[in-house]
């Protein structure tokens, strides 16, 4: 289901290889550190960024990102 709200972006740090596609798709929410690994805003993704967040999850070549429904 596309466009669900109340989600956070999570990263499997072991799977993540620092390809950086996520930060290109969602620069408002994901930046890269000095070594190219994503720094993800851990707040609930705002409504207007949820579709882009889903794209970022889909485009990751290492399948290292997922959206987690926030419990609070």
């Amino acid at each position, binding site marked *: 289901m596309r466009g669900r709200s109340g989600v956070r972006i*999570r*990263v*499997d*740090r*072991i*799977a*993540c*290889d*620092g390809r950086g596609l996520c930060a290109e798709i969602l620069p408002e929410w994901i930046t890269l*550190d*000095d*070594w*190219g*690994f994503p*720094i993800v805003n*851990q707040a609930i993704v705002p409504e207007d960024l949820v579709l882009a967040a889903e794209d970022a999850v889909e485009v990751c070549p290492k399948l290292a990102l*997922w959206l987690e429904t926030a419990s609070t």
Partner: protein
Amino acid sequence: MLDEIERSGLLGHGGAAFPTAKKLKAVLSQPGRPVVIANGTEGEPASHKDRVLLARATHLVLDGASVAADLVEAGEIFVVVHRDVRAAVDAAVGERRRTGLDRASFRVVTASDRFVAGEASAVVNWIARGKPVPLGKPPRLAERGLAGRPTLVQNVETLAQLALIARYGAAWYRSLGTPEEPGSMLVTLLGALERPGVREVEIGIPLAEVLARAGGPTSTLQAFLVGGYFGTWLAAGPSLSRPFSAQGLGVGLGAGLIFAFPTGVCGVEETAQLARYLASQSAGQCGPCMFGLPAIAGEVTKLAQGRLTSTEVLERWLLEIDGRGACSLPDGVAGQISSALKVFAPEVAEHLDGWCTARAGCRILPIPTGGPR
């Protein structure tokens, strides 16, 4: 029994102080036959309390593991121990087999000697695959851990406390300690103290009294490292009269380490040494840790050598790596070094100007060198 444990307020003594009853419930709520792991890995190189406990009160730990196994209806208990105490644990397990009083069966495993090897998922990974490194992402161990079974991983000291609660009850357990942090705990007292070693102390007594259990300081102190090498530095002066508890000191008690750091020794050099050690202990699985820790260690080393003019980049990296690993090694490094920069601020300022004022030598924290690490 579960209610009794909940009433006791028992918290984990491995480092994270997680409520034990909550962990038991999480495992109980899962389908499938659980496994219990008694974790005596003690990867923290300066800590000795788990080894001392396993050597001196082996059966108490095994009693607790047996109680936990009965509670969650586990048939198998893995006891993971430091190699120094393996023989003692083997002997005790042999005695129990002969008596046949335990419902669950025990298996003893020698722990891996690496800093991150004691993290719960790393212990599971070690038993299952011989890889002492943490596992990434969910499911949680309580859902699917060892061999896909619900897995309860408890520090050996926590299990010993559990055994005592099973014997004497929650009210007895709460007769020591504070309402939020009940009971006693084993601490490893190190540094500038008359008689360093492992002591059992009531949580909440003044820190000065804890030090007195080790004969008191041998010199004036400038700081304490509390919790472990992943812990927090505290300035000595204001801390001495505070209660020894997470609430009283405002920092986690971690694995119960207290290192008394004397005046005259360079806190910056000590921090650099710790940073290099911790960087060497990264499992190399997660980018921010694999690259960030050596970079941070390099920056602190430059600072110690008087080759840094600003801590701006270092402080940004410390903020950035926090929370970005499969285990909490990066968080621990960030917290420990950030606290060092605050507690040793005057010495940091001197180093930025190219000076070190320490006159009593340096490198006093015991840091393992050599060997397969």
